[in-house]
């Protein structure tokens, strides 16, 4: 086990996923990537990441459902979840928190801001 924090990045958009991965790897984290909600859940159970960055709108399972499944499983029930949402409507954000997310950023977001939020989540006692 290394001390490098592991971040799971789940987004179906390859460019955006690579952008988030690039920023977080540049910051010294280890990153695993999932291309849809199903893979996100599987990788989260398998790798037990320290933070999950989760796109809301994904094929197979959406971000809400992924967050719910992570909360329901003992391997991942306390992992911090950061939602990437293209919807700024309050009701969508509220639904995200209901599903178990800890924080969110609205697209288009600043990679620097995302990095700061991930760092804050890692510092938070779980």
């Amino acid at each position, binding site marked *: 086990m290394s001390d490098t924090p592991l971040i799971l990045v789940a987004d179906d958009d390859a*460019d*955006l996923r690579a952008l988030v991965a*690039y920023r977080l790897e540049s910051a010294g984290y280890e990153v695993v990537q999932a291309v849809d909600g199903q893979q996100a859940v599987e990788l989260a159970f398998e790798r037990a990441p320290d933070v999950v960055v989760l796109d809301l709108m994904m094929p197979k399972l959406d971000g809400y459902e992924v967050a719910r499944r992570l909360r329901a499983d003992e391997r991942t029930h306390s992992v911090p979840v950061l939602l990437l949402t293209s919807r700024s*409507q*309050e009701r969508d954000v509220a639904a995200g928190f209901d599903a178990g997310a800890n924080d969110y950023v609205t697209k*288009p977001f*600043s990679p620097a801001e995302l990095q700061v939020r991930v760092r804050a989540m890692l510092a938070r006692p779980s």
Partner: protein
Amino acid sequence: MPFTPPPIPEDEAERLADLQSYGILDTPPEQVFDDLTLIATAICGTPMSTLTLVDGERQWFKSRVGVDGEGDPRDVSFCAHTVGPRETLVVEDAWRDSRFAENPLVLGKPHIRFYAGSPLVTERGHVLGTICVLDREPRRLREEQVAALDALSRQAMQALEYRRHNRRLLELDAMKDEFVALVSHELRTPLASIRGYVEELLEQTDSMTETQRRFLAVVARNGARLNAIVDDLLLLATAQAGKLDLHPEQFALFELAQEAIESNLHLADSLELEAAGDSRLVVEADRTRIGQVVDNLVSNAVKFTADGGAVRVCVSADGEDAVIEVADTGAGIPAAELPLLFSPFYRAAGATNNGVPGTGLGLAISKAIVDAHAGSISVTSEVGKGTTFRVSIPR
């Protein structure tokens, strides 16, 4: 032959499609149709009346008085006989009419002797069914009773058209919401990539040439502009759909005047900006949204006012309303353009010619926000003298 089943018209497929488009089959009773069958019994003096729709294999009652059941097979339907001829059918005594004498509805329940049905004819010329009256005794209708029954069938048809129109509007509204949600997601994801990658590049400008840096700045600026348009469009669609989340709170309107001036100061070096009026006037409204309106008006005023001019924001009470006015000494707007100002994407001729930046959505959004507060927004202007926007909201 015991009785004559109704003939199937040549245009039956089109007729059924027309019927389907009303979305009326198997829906619960509605007052407007129940009223019509009630009136029909009163006018014709019969114990029974139905508003019947003739489906492919059955007749179905949207409304019924004195009749049990939801409908009957089409074969035995009296009403279905009007579908082909498109004319009112009167059977004074079914026992003496070879088409109906041995019809199960005559021999058994509801023991029809008398029938009069006026067809429901659509705009496209199809008969959907009838409004009809029935009796267990032979009967003769006076001419004006038949005319009144025909009038009721026209009324029923109008109610059906109105109902269909409303359904269509609801469908369109749902489609619009869906479209907005789709645009929201489909545009924001590529925008997020553009913004994100540009931001990463902007941290590596040391290794770039001056030209590359300049071009990158252009990409960044236009990405931001595209994003602003998407945000504005979504806000406008949300507000126009009446789905804006308002968070009313009490505050002094004057604060918004001051804040709008402060945030536009950097664009107005050589202008005189002033907030005036009642600094204690309190309103209950969504502070952020109304602030957005005032900021938009002040920023417009600044853009269209030449150096040395003035922009004045004035707060006052007008009966039960609070009023905030933004007056400038700018170029003014020709009278012909004034009614168009609040339309989405309308840009004043002066703005286009002089390269004033903007999406053309600011005033449309301002109006939608003010409307959501049950207020009003108006403009007066004189070319060469200046323009005044007036926002009035209930206190």
